[in-house]
């Protein structure tokens, strides 16, 4: 949380000026009773109408000055709060961008989004309100106590007792409610996740006619949020009644004690009136403060949630190497084993292989055999628990990640496009690419036709929804080609393409002088590779060229024949 509020430091001046001007306004307000007293004592007593008019002018002047002063205060606090929220949001976003895939998956997308938006809004309004009221209210409360001492030292003990009791009540209520408000935000996370899910999965949800049960689920989650909200609010709703009650008790004691002292002749009736007025002033201020405390409590709960993201260090340490050795194989795995989380089964077991530069590696295997994981490890989306991975002759961990990803281009299985234009997506990773580069990449990816039809500036909606699965895949291949890099990994990037397009893309790629890793379930996609790895249950079941595997591996043969058996008779 400390990290979060450090973004206020830049606005220290605003944060000091805002309450200071508020203070000034409060001081100006304290003058008003004095002026009124003067009107009564001099103007009315002496029947001096011009004096009264002059004093009323002073009141006017006080109110105009007060307006100017408090407008200034409001400006400073609004500026500090929005600038702080802007900087903190930016920093939070940048911090999240440092996270690895594993980190993001662990946290969950919905909660990240909610903390970025909902929680930050709470923190912002908390900062704003705090700057406006925090200095003013304690000043008024302590000022009233100070005045009580001036009026009568012995009666002021009531203030000495009442103020700490008030502070204690406020502190205790806040302490209990902060965690409850945090749990409220947790409930909001859940609703957010459900809303996203129902938007995205609408087709499947409707296909199974699940709207009703999804509705029920959402309503139940809403009810549970309601329970949490009421649980948190029912306690914080105590703040105002409790503090008022304490002050009212204080007033009773004050008057009773005052009565004893007046009876004894050590205090006047007027002084009791003054003391009573000061206690009332505290009461009025506390009512204002109670609102602030609610806002602050919620803001604090949200700040904790944002802070916990700041406190989470990215789990992957960046390397420093910004070049690659002259020699050494393109990709080498040495006894690599990997599991996604502790306690989960190992997805890859003791993988070792070597791929020379310029060669093509084909990876084939059943669904769930670990092909995508293998690809992800090459681009260091995850770190393996055991073994070592070398890229271009140096350990993958030694490279600066940005350099590694410029060298190793991974086209993800579930490739996603960004909202914007087609050209924007293609040039995303390499803004300086020329038009020829883009066209060549589109041509190789067999995407030139449909792109030219729509135009390079055709809009792309979030996730590329306005394109078919095959079009998305071809665009993502083109994007990778524009990006360049000496190792190109295609994770099942042809699955939505028809065989004809698939083979055209592969032919075009063959002409590009880069090391290629092609993951596919189609035997035709990998059979020309220099090296083919057959994965089974996370282990290498067989490795070699197409011919070698056809001779040695019955499983590989079977895979091949499920595709080609009948055609052999036809063609």
């Amino acid at each position: 949380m400390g990290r979060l509020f450090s973004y206020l430091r830049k606005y220290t001046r605003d944060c000091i000026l805002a309450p200071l001007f508020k203070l000034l306004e409060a001081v100006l307000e304290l003058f008003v009773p004095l002026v009124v007293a003067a009107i009564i004592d001099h103007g009315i007593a002496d029947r001096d109408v011009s004096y009264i008019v002059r004093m009323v002018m002073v009141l006017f002047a006080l109110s105009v000055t007060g307006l100017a002063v408090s407008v200034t205060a409001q400006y400073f606090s609004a500026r500090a709060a929005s600038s702080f929220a802007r900087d903190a949001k930016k920093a939070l976003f940048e911090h999240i961008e440092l996270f690895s895939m594993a980190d993001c998956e662990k946290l969950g997308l919905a909660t990240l989004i909610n903390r970025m938006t909902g929680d930050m809004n709470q923190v912002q309004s908390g900062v704003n309100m705090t700057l406006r009221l925090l200095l003013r209210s304690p000043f008024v409360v302590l000022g009233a106590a100070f005045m009580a001492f001036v009026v009568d030292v012995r009666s002021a003990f009531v203030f000495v007792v009442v103020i700490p009791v008030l502070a204690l009540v406020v502190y205790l209520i806040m302490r209990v409610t902060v965690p409850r408000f945090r749990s409220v935000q947790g409930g909001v996370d859940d609703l957010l996740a459900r809303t996203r899910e129902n938007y995205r999965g609408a087709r499947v949800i409707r296909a199974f006619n699940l709207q009703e049960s999804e509705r029920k689920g959402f309503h139940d989650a809403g009810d549970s949020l309601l329970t949490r909200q009421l649980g948190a609010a029912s306690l914080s709703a105590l703040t105002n009644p409790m503090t008022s009650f304490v002050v009212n008790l204080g007033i009773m004691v004050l008057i009773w004690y005052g009565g004893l002292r007046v009876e004894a002749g050590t205090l006047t009736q007027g002084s009791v009136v003054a003391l009573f007025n000061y206690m009332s002033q505290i009461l009025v201020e506390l009512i204002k403060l109670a609102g602030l405390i609610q806002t602050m409590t919620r803001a604090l709960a949200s700040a904790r949630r944002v802070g916990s993201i700041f406190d989470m260090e990215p789990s992957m340490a960046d390397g420093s190497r910004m070049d690659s050795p002259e020699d050494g194989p393109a990709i080498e795995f040495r006894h690599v084993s990997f599991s996604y989380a502790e306690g989960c089964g190992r997805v890859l077991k003791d993988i070792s292989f070597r791929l020379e530069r310029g060669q093509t590696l084909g990876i084939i295997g059943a669904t769930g055999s670990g092909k995508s994981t293998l690809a992800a490890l090459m681009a260091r989306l995850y770190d393996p628990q055991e073994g070592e991975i070398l890229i271009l002759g140096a350990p993958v961990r030694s490279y600066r990640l940005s350099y590694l990803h410029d060298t190793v281009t991974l086209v993800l299985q579930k490739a996603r496009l960004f909202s914007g234009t087609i050209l924007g997506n293609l040039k995303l990773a390499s803004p300086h690419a020329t038009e020829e580069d883009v066209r060549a990449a589109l041509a190789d990816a067999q995407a030139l036709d449909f792109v030219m039809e729509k135009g390079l500036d055709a809009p792309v909606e979030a996730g590329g929804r306005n394109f078919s699965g095959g079009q998305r895949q071809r665009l993502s291949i083109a994007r990778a080609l524009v990006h360049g890099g000496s190792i190109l990994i295609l994770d099942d990037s042809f699955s939505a393409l028809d065989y004809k397009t698939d083979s055209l893309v592969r032919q075009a790629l063959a002409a590009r002088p880069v090391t290629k890793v092609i993951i596919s379930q189609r035997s035709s996609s990998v059979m020309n590779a220099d090296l083919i790895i057959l994965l089974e249950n996370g282990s290498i079941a067989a490795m070699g060229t197409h011919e070698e595997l056809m001779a040695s591996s019955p499983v590989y043969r079977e895979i091949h024949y499920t595709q080609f058996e009948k055609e052999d008779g036809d063609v």
Partner: protein
Amino acid sequence: MYKKTLIRMFSYLAAYRGRFVLSVVMALVYVLSSLYIPLLAGQAIDSLIGPGRVDFSLLTGRLAAILVTSLVCFLSQYILSRLNNTLVYSLSRNLRNDAFDKIGRLPFAYLDSHRQGDVVARVIGDVEQVADGLLLGFSQFLTAVLTIVLTIYYLFSLDWLMALVVILLSPLSLVVASFIARRTHKHFRKTAEKRSLQTDLTDEFITNTGEVICYNLQNQCQERFGRVNDEWAESSLKGTFYSSLVNPATRAVNSIVYACAALTGSLLVITGRMSVGGLTSALSYATQYTKPFNDITGVVTELQNALVCASRIFALLDEAEVEDRGTLELPHGPLSVSFRNVFFSYVSGQDLIRDFSLDIESGRHVAIVGPTGAGKSTIINLLMRYYDADSGTILIDGIPIGQLKLSSLRLSFGSVLQDSFIRRATVRENIAMGRSFTDDQIIAACQKAHVHNIIMNLENGYDTMLDDDEGLLSAGERQLIAIARCMVALPNLLILDEATSSIDTRTEGLIQSSFNEMTRGRTSFVVAHRLSTIRNADIILVMKDGDIVESGRHDELLARGGFYSELYHSQYAKAVGQGR
């Protein structure tokens, strides 16, 4: 414009009429008791006449009355705020539920063309802002109004001229407040829009984490986010600042009223119409009277923000809905499907399907083939009524699909769709999809779909929690889950839209026999790239650029030497040719 939104908000309140009335009563009790305490305290102080002349019996009586009154005050205030919390949070829950339910009834034309983040911002973020605004409104508005009414009463009891001065001048602060509020409105709306844009961008970038990492897009995303963030901060600053002007402005007006009251009062005292004590009381009432005005104007700005957000929610609620006016249900058993002169376009003017007619007898297998982007999935969209045809009819079992209950229509289809969506639920629930099956049935289906072993390898087997966002399952495994979903129950009609595109050919071959068993005697539609899987279809529709260019059986089409045979030969000849 406000008025409509406000009236609609009140319609939500109607469900809690009883509590609302109780809340008003409690507010009344609270204001009465809290205003009564100073009066009692004044009388108690009056008993302290001087040394040796304190009326202790009066003093103890009044102090006891203060104790009782402050207890009443305590209780009424506590009950009041709990009632208000319940009211506001229940109301916002109902609003959120309605907004969420709406998503389930929106047509795909809306869902496919709107930003997910924007809708999420409305359902979650805007509802929260509405709740915040209303809470402040409820907790301060009522008490403020009641305080004003009671104070007017006390002022008149003092002096009518004095009362008139205060009452006539005070609305000035309301005028000032509404003047500012009108100018603030624009900024609130802008801030809400920017906030939703920001949510949307955050959503997109976080969802695309894989791409961001693989293409080193961190800096670019930060820049884009930074720009939206700056714009948001700018309008947020303006909105916050302008709205925070209301309080100082009304306070200034109030102190001017106070000064006028002081002037009037002093002159009244000089002319002998009023006592000094009366003036003191009048002035203290003048402050008390203007304070609630302050509160009300503060509430007005909050309410304004709430109304802006509410109107965004209502705009979502007012979107046109999917029509589900059909009443008929499909029988069980084999069903025929007919297309009669169907025209369809996603964007009006750009016909994707033109005058399409076809009769499919029950139990036939239809394959739809064609290059990527030819509009194969569109046929599925029309069959499942995700989209409605622009003209023409689709009949199932002789009934136009518009006359069928949507639920009956969709549940008659077993479908494996292109994008296999995983619910945030356990594996078991992901397969049952709200239908009731025994564990044995679910396991049997998973075995048929060859996903049972994969599931057993997960941390908690069938009880493992899945999430569409996370990478626990690969695309192929997700498809297998979708296939198991379909296999667990035998529907009347079957749609397989690229059902095995991410599954390896060997597993696919293994599943094929289960598929064959499933499709036997059922009308089925298969969209596939793998020609081998559709060779046995009764009719093959060959699509190109949205048109059905050829149709017939595999052998007929091959013999015809048209587009299909071109497609077929290029695929297998090339693939095999490259093999050697």
